[in-house]
């Protein structure tokens, strides 16, 4: 990740810790957020979409689930679509 990506990734991680109450020690940039990884569900994805919209101004409603796979995937999508 470049510096900008690292900044975004760290913000996303902080948001997951603060807003979805995921213990920080459980999270790294690669762990799968849904399914067998952290075990997030559809309500959590709504929260992620809402937070990314207000934090970065990037709309992710209806975006393919591969972009939600882990923090790295989210970061990549956000950086690509930021103004």
């Amino acid at each position, binding site marked *: 990740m470049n510096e900008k990506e690292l900044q975004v990734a760290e913000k996303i991680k902080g948001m997951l810790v603060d*807003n*979805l*109450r*995921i*213990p920080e020690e*459980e999270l790294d940039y690669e762990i799968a957020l849904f399914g067998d990884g*952290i*075990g*997030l569900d559809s*309500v*959590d994805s*709504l*929260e992620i979409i*809402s937070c990314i919209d*207000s934090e970065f101004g990037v709309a992710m409603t209806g975006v393919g689930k591969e972009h939600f796979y882990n923090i790295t995937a989210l970061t990549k999508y956000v950086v690509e679509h930021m103004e």
Partner: protein
Amino acid sequence: MERQLNTRCVVTGLGMVNAIGANVEECWENALAGKEGIDHVKSVNADNCYANLGAEIDFELPKEEEKDRVSVLCLKASGEAFADSKLEGSIEDPTRFGVIMGSCVGGVLSIEEYITNGEKTEDINKMTISSIANHVATRFGAKGVITNVGNACAAGAISVAYACELIRAGVADVFIVGGADAFASVPFSGFHALHALSENPCSPFNHSNGITLGEGAGAMVVESYEHASKRGAKIYCDVLAAGISSDAYHITAPRPDGIGQMYAINRAIEMSGLQKSDIGYVNAHGTGTAKNDETEFLSLHTIFDNAGGDLSVSSVKAMVGHCLGAAGAIEAVYSIKALTEGKIPPTIGYSAEDLDVLKEKAGEIDFMPNTAREKELKAVMSNNFAFGGSNASVIFAKDLGEVKETESDEEVYITGLGIVSPLGNGVENYVNQINAGNKVSGNSVLAEVGKDDFGKFDIKMAFFRKLDKFSLMQVVSGLEALKEAGIAPEEGKEEDYGMIIGTGDGPLTTVYEFEDHIAKEGNENGSAFNFPNTVYNAAGGYLSIKTGLRGYNVTITNGSQSGLQSVGYAFHEIKQNRAKGMLATGTDENSAVMQKLYGQLGLVADGDAKLYVNQSGQTLSDGSVSVALESKSSAEKHGSKKYAVVAGYGMAHEGVKYGEIKGSDAGLKNAVTMALSMAGISAGDVDGIFGLGNGVKDVDDIEIGLVKEMFSATPVINVREYIGEARAAAATLSVAHAALTLSGDLAADQDAFVFENGVEVKKVNTSSWKNVLAVAQGTGGTYSAVVLKKAE
């Protein structure tokens, strides 16, 4: 031995207000005409929201002093039902006259008002659900069981069921029941965040693309046939039976396999003595979300297809919106009108194309598109399903039927305990702390739930991170009580076990924080993650999910005494054979928000609170205590420890201004008298009292007065001395501490207050105690009392 519960329960009064009418007649005629009450929302800012519709009441409501809009709505519907029943002047014993009201969001408008308009003290007592039933009781002179059901969108339906249970148990004659909710930003923003709001008027069983919120209230007078006929009351119908269950699946979504709903519906039919084919109309929950409608189609087809009947189904939500905690009550009133008038209101909103699609989905059921029809009906069913996986089904009928409810004379034992408190978690820890003479200090103390508890009860991160502190405390104490009791239902028996959650303030902290957030960030920015935890029955829902218990699951809320009332409620569930085992709990949370609100009300002590010495403040505390109750046969089957016998229960209300308690002494005396009577003992047989004083003079004085009058030198042990005023948790802890005393787990020598000559603290030896009494209070003048006996 079992005896048949033959008492007939009848409906003698109706009241209703919603977006399409100010009274039953208007609401009814407009529903038959298919009038849609849905429009662009006015009371909530939806400027930046993807959906902006609601079914708001746009006519003027009666002026009521010092009450939230939810209580104004509830008083209006209750007043209509009360007048309709002509009850005034015909109540011989007001302690057998109760009020049970359902609500989902309670006084959430007052939280909004508080946050956005100057944090006024007068708004604080209007915030919770607790006040609603109190206002109705005080207005109409009810002095018996007064409570609120907090089971979100099933709350209104459950209020009818609980009233009938108490009437059949012989502890009450007549109730005003129902439910109310006002249109507000919190639910609007919450359902918006969940993408559960429809952009167009909701379209149940049709487009199924989301709900449209509404507001209103429904009320019924339900009484024993004997009481109604003695006073020559007009009888609308019988309430034959109800079924209540929990999905144990998901906090917001219904089980896709529908087994929770189907258990509730089948249970109601079975207990009513009717055949499926006798049900001519089901007023469906029909919210218009894809998940609800799909599951409800499945349940209705599975149960009623090929049953030889002619079933009609409709959802009035297409006209009046989803009125949340009022929905079950409003829809019960519509169901009763359908039954007695022989007309069925439609589900509106179908186009010609929609009708073609409906044909496929409807099968042999008539889903009543667009137009009302006349139909001779023998019996009708009203179904409601809610967040937390809560399911309720109620059957009303023209004839008395053959109700199958029974009552057992088996004893009910306390077989397990679970404790989360500021002294630490776990029963063993509590016993050690008390025996060591430890107690909390300061004016605000907190329980903690964390890694050790999660490890002990195998609570995974994917589960626990979803819960707020209120729910976490409840899940941990509930799991401990079940583990202690050894309750682990085998497959297929999950409905035999349930829970009654008692709470005074519910998830007020979470609701407050949700409102605070949207007040700053806009209704379009509500948190989908936090919203499910704003419903009062979230804690019971999570506990059901974690344990797999799918039986009776109700959250009651009427001040601190809710944690003692839950014991009485659960006791009835076992006695009346609806459950083999039940958890009865009390849970309340302390937080920065609660410290601020209680502090502003002047109820928090300056330093350490001191009980019974004319002080004006409490040590604000929190926690969760769960008590497992089981029938004797169930307890013996798996060799549970028997801590104590639950021998009697009483609840009474002496209405004073909500937020105060002074002058309500008679309520406590009545509750205690009822509990002693049910236990078959007199005041002289009581060896010890587990008291309710909390350091607030008006509260303490009422207890001192009662003890002096009825019990003279009987010692009073008070758990608030050890853990502070944890409200409902302290009320349940009184029972737990009493059970640990009778069982001999706690050291025999304990500190107790004696009021015979002033206020003295004495060491008492409890080893010979056989009968004890626990008491608790709720603001506004509501009291519960429980008698425990030593287990043989």
